[in-house]
């Protein structure tokens, strides 16, 4: 197949406080073997040759694991291929003459920094609220002291595979971060090490998620469809169950401690 010429409609926004708009560009001579982000690299070289500022977009590892790349491509976070980050999407998925619409991950809690880059610090805040095991260096027992059944370790891994990209939020009509939050809750809930703080964790993380301005789940499951790592929506049910428990148990615990004076 010969090289492609494409029409790109790209969101340009000088900074967070400025108004943005879609702008149209022609890009020529794209190889089918190039990745989507390499296609944008070529565009940026062509723009600079003409004295125009390049389009800002985030990427780092370009291997589908760091979670830095984003982009809504033709209306879909990370583009048309299931289980694929934008950096792993390749141009052979497109054909000569295609028009492609490229926008940032949009959500109230992900303000635009510039063009296609957004600020996902709200995710850091959710994890900081409780997405960890309190285990200072120096305090750990031997790693084989607590056996963990393989199936359980595998389930924990499945949830821990989340790369924190935010596609779930961008895909959700409510801009909900419940899949992201639930993945962390489930990762640690499946491990014995996560049990002591299990209810305190879920409560704090859900509270932080709400405070950051993310919406709630109304069972569209767009998040699961958009997730490049196949994180299951079932974790949301687990999170909701644990959260409900945390509300009642915490009340009981307080009553007990109050009663005991």
């Amino acid at each position: 197949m010969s090289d492609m010429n494409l029409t790109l409609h790209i969101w340009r926004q000088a900074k967070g406080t400025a108004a943005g708009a879609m702008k149209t560009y022609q890009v020529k001579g794209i190889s089918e073997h190039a990745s989507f982000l390499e296609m944008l690299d070529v565009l940026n070289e062509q723009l600079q040759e003409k004295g125009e500022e390049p389009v800002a977009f985030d990427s780092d590892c370009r291997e589908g694991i760091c979670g830095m790349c984003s982009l809504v491509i033709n209306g879909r976070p990370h583009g048309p291929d299931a289980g694929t980050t934008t950096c792993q999407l390749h141009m052979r998925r497109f054909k000569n003459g295609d028009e492609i619409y490229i926008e940032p991950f949009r959500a109230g809690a992900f303000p635009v920094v510039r063009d296609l880059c957004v600020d996902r610090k709200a995710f850091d805040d959710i994890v900081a609220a409780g997405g960890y095991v309190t285990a200072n260096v120096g305090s750990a027992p031997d790693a084989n002291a607590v056996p963990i059944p393989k199936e359980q370790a595998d389930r924990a891994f499945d949830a821990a595979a989340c790369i924190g990209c935010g596609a779930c939020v961008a895909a959700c009509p409510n801009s909900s971060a419940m899949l992201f939050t639930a993945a962390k809750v489930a990762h640690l809930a499946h491990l014995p090490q996560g049990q002591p703080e299990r209810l305190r964790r879920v409560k704090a993380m859900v509270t932080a998620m709400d405070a950051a301005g993310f919406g709630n789940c109304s069972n569209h499951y767009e998040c699961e469809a958009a997730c490049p790592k196949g994180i299951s929506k079932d974790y949301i049910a687990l999170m909701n169950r644990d959260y409900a428990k945390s509300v009642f148990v915490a009340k009981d615990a307080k009553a007990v401690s109050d009663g005991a004076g």
Partner: protein
Amino acid sequence: MNLDARIPSGPIAEKWNRAKFELKLVNPANKRKYSVIVVGSGLAGGAAAATLAELGYNVACFCFQDTPRRAHSIAAQGGINAAKNYQNDGDSIHRLFYDTVKGGDFRAREANVHRLAEVSVDIIDQCTAQGVPFAREYGGTLANRSFGGAQVSRTFYARGQTGQQLLIGVYQALARQIAAGKVTMFNRTEMLDVVTVDGRAAGIVVRDLVTGKIESHSAHAVILATGGYGNVFYLSTNAMGSNVTATYRAYKRGAAFGNPCYTQIHPTCIPVSGDYQSKLTLMSESLRNDGRVWVPKKAEDVAKASKDPGSIPDEDRDYYLERKYPSYGNLSPRDIASRAAKEACDDGRGVGPGGRGVYLDFRDAIKRDSQAKIAEKYGNLFDMYARITGENPYQQPMRIYPAVHYTMGGLWVDYHLQSTIPGMFVLGEANFSDHGANRLGASALMQGLADGYFIISYTLGHYLAGINAATGKVGTDHPEFKRVEADVKGRIDKLMSIGAKGKRTVDSFHKALGHIMWEKCGMARTKEGLTEALKAIPALREEFWQDVKVLGERETFNQSLEKAGRVADFLEFAELMCQDALEREESCGGHFRTEYQEGGEAKRDDERFCHVAAWEYQGEAKKPVRHVEPLTFETVKLATRSYK
């Protein structure tokens, strides 16, 4: 220049314990009076920031990505070594120490490597306690796999995403300290210079990548954990943002740079497909357990082999690793397999576009074990290959070629991980310390976490104990901070003013530099080639400073300006690398000088080069001075590596 490595006295196995007792302590109530800057949030930096905060120090941590969880440690696939001997197969701290010294081709410091092997066992405990979901057996105990350069199974892993899971563990520990107020995190902030006052590290100057503002931060000590410099080659398996700026700036402020020429070139990566290529993707070393590497025997078969590899009968294929290294075959070490692939392609027998590729063929393994069996072992890697190349590796062999992967060189550090600037410590890939001239698989993660979780907390405490908390920290209003800030701003102004009129993009310069480095300072180096590179690099640098194009504004989010600053530093650093490669007149590990070989194999010169080269900056346009730290091998006997 003082290159005292401060290695504790006594037998090798007792040195670290002795040091831990002898090192001074900061009492718990006083720790909160000290502040520490950590640059980088990967396994080394993130672990150090979290651990020091747990102890009570006040930490400021910086990363250029949008969150600390993106650091490039995340991309490590295979695993992490530890001398747990859970497999009862004869592993021990001494054996891990021995394998690492030998794997590094006897160019690492014995005492550091032994300490690394000692703390490796604690790393696995710590990570498990944090909830890292390592692979497990049905009985619930931890699973292990084997890796190159070892005869035991000591590699712990989490599917093919071990680096990701370890980094998430670090990130969570860091997040806990951020919430506790003990770590202040600066995302999208890039360190652009180091400030020293009275010869000690006093702080750093950074650029807020969102606002473009230049700011200073001061502390009682500075830790650099900013990774390797593989991107000097433009194409590498490193992340797009990985760069040398932090360590190179420190070098220019007085920190010695150790063994800059030591580069690891990984044999199994997906080859370059075109000019637009931005990075190279690694295919795990484990594939060589079942794949057979070959090229056609005759150059005239190349076109046919490239079009339809299956049409080349066995007798016309050269399974060159099996032929040259019968006892190790396709599992020869990384440096050797890489050079053999280059030789085959230089011989005109490379396959695929541009003739820069060799086949990694699973035909025989599929015939022997069935496609389902192979898919079970390597399914995710085969999928990744198919996604990137559009070819089906079950039906036709993978095309692979070596690519730059890791840099063993880095800032020189002593046993305390302190650079030649007092108060500046360097951790992880950014330092030069533990891997000698070649790193073994699954050892990078081990070193990053060893430095960050288990070593720096002791050695930094010793340094701080000698500093007055009240008077030992200089304010950012100190004239030296103002001077360095002015330097940084001046450099950005210069880039912007040239950039407004320049005609050639930053990437175009970076690609040109990468081409020089790959050709002249890559897998095989010669005196002639390095001498040419030492002429070509300054010429390119001069052109850069006259004609680079950088659009946009200074005080905005400006990715071209970010890249321009990094490439400007690569253009200087590349010269240091070539100089080091030129003056190391021997072949060892990843450093192969064509003139120094025996029967096609690397030939070390222990008489003349059994030492660390530590380079000291002398000023613009002046040749840096090469200092030497002799290496003594008291425990492991110097021997020639052979894999035939």
